[in-house]
């Protein structure tokens, strides 16, 4: 097994007490538990406090544009589907700026694992409301309280085709590691929405808040029941947060259905093309 420090890059610059610390450790542990090394995984980071993890983890990585981590990951996966591909992004980044990519990637069931740091604010730009903010949340950008209700990312993922939809809490690292490891081993689009206290800007959704409002799905919970999953997911509207795998389904992932990938990765493919055939169209 790879030692943890192989994955350790720079010392994180997150605020002391930030939920990102737990997530940062958990990701490394989950990568190790999944038998990966810094050379065998590709991580596409968003832009935000969350995305700053790019410097704290050793791996093949892209630290791209705010909102665009997912399409970069999709392109990478299409080119080299043998490599484990992960997205790490903030809620503003992934559900806000990048919402459209999320929606359509679910439809495709790309074999990508997504970790979203759900702190309900834009941390890096100093505390504006994220799309996950609870209705009425007051912030710099919404001093009168945000009018929109929170996005319901889990329902969105379930209804649009994602095949592994889960939620975790940054304050419960063992559970988080376990869930992350399962998400990584899942074939198809896996989402882990991670409830993450931002101790600096979000004084409402604190550790204490989540401790009293999260609960683990029971062992009897049936994660293949779509309707039940939707019910659970929508509890975000009542400020209740189920933790665990809400929904899981076995379906072919995107790259498994692409004809030209059936014989190997694009990266490895050597072309032997019958140009005569191609040219005959133009005669």
């Amino acid at each position, binding site marked *: 097994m790879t030692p943890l420090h192989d994955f350790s*890059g*720079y010392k994180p610059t997150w605020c002391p007490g930030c939920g990102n610390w737990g997530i940062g450790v958990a990701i490394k542990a989950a990568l190790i538990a999944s038998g990966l090394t*810094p*050379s*065998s995984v*590709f991580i*596409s*980071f968003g*832009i935000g406090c969350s995305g*700053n993890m*790019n*410097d704290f983890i*050793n*791996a*093949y*990585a*892209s*630290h*791209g*544009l705010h*909102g*665009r981590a997912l*399409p*970069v*990951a*999709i*392109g*990478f*996966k*299409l*080119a*080299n589907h*043998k*490599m484990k591909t992960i997205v790490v992004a903030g809620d503003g980044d992934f559900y806000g700026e990048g919402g*459209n*990519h999320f*929606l*359509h990637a679910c439809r495709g069931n790309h074999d990508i694992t997504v970790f979203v740091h759900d702190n309900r604010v834009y941390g890096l730009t100093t505390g504006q409301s994220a799309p996950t903010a609870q209705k009425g949340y007051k912030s710099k950008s919404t001093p009168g309280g945000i009018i929109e209700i929170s996005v319901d990312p889990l329902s969105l993922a379930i209804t649009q085709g994602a095949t592994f939809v889960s939620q975790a809490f940054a304050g419960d690292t063992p559970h988080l590691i376990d869930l992350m490891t399962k998400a990584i081993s899942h074939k198809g689009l896996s989402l882990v929405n991670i409830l993450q206290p931002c101790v600096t800007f979000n004084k409402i959704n604190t550790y204490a808040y989540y401790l009293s409002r999260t609960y683990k799905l029971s062992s009897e919970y049936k994660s293949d029941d779509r309707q039940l999953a939707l019910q659970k997911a929508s509890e975000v509207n009542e400020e209740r947060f189920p933790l665990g795998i809400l929904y899981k389904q076995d379906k072919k992932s995107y790259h498994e259905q*692409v*004809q*030209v*990938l059936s014989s190997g990765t*694009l*990266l490895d*493919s050597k*072309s032997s*093309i*019958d*140009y005569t*055939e*191609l*040219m005959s*169209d*133009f*005669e």
Partner: protein
Amino acid sequence: MKHFLWKIGGEAGFGILTTGLVFSKIASRLGYYVFDFIQYPSLIRGGHNTYDVGFADKPVYSLKQDIDLLVCLNQETFTQHADRLSPDSLVLYDSSEFDCVGPYKKVSVPFKKILTDLKGQVVMKNTIALGATIALLGGDINILYDLLTSQFQKKGQNIVDFNKQFAQAGYDHIQSQYSAYIKNRLEKVDNQEGLVMSGNEVFSLGCVLADCKLYVAYPMTPSSSVLSVLADWQDKTGMLARHAEDEISVINTALGGSIAGVRSAVGTSGGGFALMVETVSFAGIAEIPLVIFLSQRPGPATGMPTWTEQGDLLFAVHAGHGEFPKIVLAPGDNDEMLDLTLAAFDLADIYQTPVIMLSDMLLSESHRSISKQKVQNLIKTHKVDRGKFVLEPDVVPYKRYKITDDGISPRLVPGAKEAYYQSNSYEHLEDGHTSEEAHVRINQIDKRARKMTAYLQKHFKGPIVLGDYKNADTVFITWGSTKGAVQEARKILDEDGIKTAQLHFTYLHPLDPQIITPFFKDKKRYIAVENNSRGQFEKLLSMELGIKIKEKILRYDGRPILAEDIINTLQKNNK
């Protein structure tokens, strides 16, 4: 033999586009060079479509104004284009449907009656017209039969035969009724074999030849057919063509592929490109190779989606926030399209930066002849140059953004053992980690800038000189698709004894003043010819060289510049 212009027009949605292309192929199979052009509104039906096919036994560089044979499937075709007819022009129509008033060589073909008699559908008017055309121009009807066969054979021999009848009917009608009008304009000539390809098709073929593995796009006229062609070819080429949810996804997906190590490209038009420019900037700082095919159409915004313009040059050159290297190339015809496509992929890999290929509707959608021999040679000889792309780290820890003399760092394939690195959109250290230190910033900015110094030294090409530059009094400056119209105009001007030459630019950005300035030192009349309203390339030259070209010939009504436009403006300006 003079350049002959055949033109067909009819209601949108009734097969004009297919018919035009079939005629182009007929001319090509008979050894002619062709240059065709489609006009259609941004509607699926209800509008008016036309298709020009010019052909000659010498290369055809451009469209021409005068129509030699006009096929009118509806009355609009006649009324809209009558001003381009002369007494020598043939006009083909059905006098039972409408009349064509004027001093032309009128040829009435009973489309309606033939359709009724043979129980055909309205689209089969086209086939009748093709048969009649071949008869009028003294061509070989069997070539049309061959083309009909390949078009319909999937549907069975009866369908082939059924369609042939209409061709035959048109052909026979002319033979029997209009033999006096028959000219030998489609006799087989002895030229090297040609392929009839649109610019988009040539670009597509170039992508395949360049070993591009991932093409991502979102449909947008006039670039869309690249996606259809490459998608259609997937099983034959092994390339993956992906239609993503929006253009932002398109370019980021392609970058993901490129990061992984496969050659990737995107295609779009101005509006879609506008959505991509943030990511172009990402490719710039993170040093990710990418080929962007930008086929222009008249803007701003939705503009005139199905027409032509060269209105996005300055936008493309300056696209993306911040300062980073970028290469802009623009082919002027099919040969250049093929060569530059191959170059674009190499340059993107060598300089690890975005390369924009500028096309426009005229270049993208018109079909022209390209030498089959040329294509075959390239297939045999072309070797891709991936620059400093490496499969193993040169040293460990590997430095993705290592400072080097030419600014280019070895680019390692992700997945290589014993290494890792990030492609970083933040300013970064040599190893890829984020940094905001002043000296790091300066070093990395300078390193990236040096890549363009190296490019200018090693790969930049100055203008292609056409004509006798030394003795010319008048020098035309062209880029992109205006190349042909000026070539055509210069043929005519040369015949009139006016000494002209042409500086045709294909490597548009960055420009090397040392190579270019000498061309502007002489006392000549310089004229920039552009298909836009501002003279964008003239501005670019002024920006880089500090030289103002005073005379410009511009056209910005969505139509291509014609040789006639150039000659007329020249004469007007002379007065």
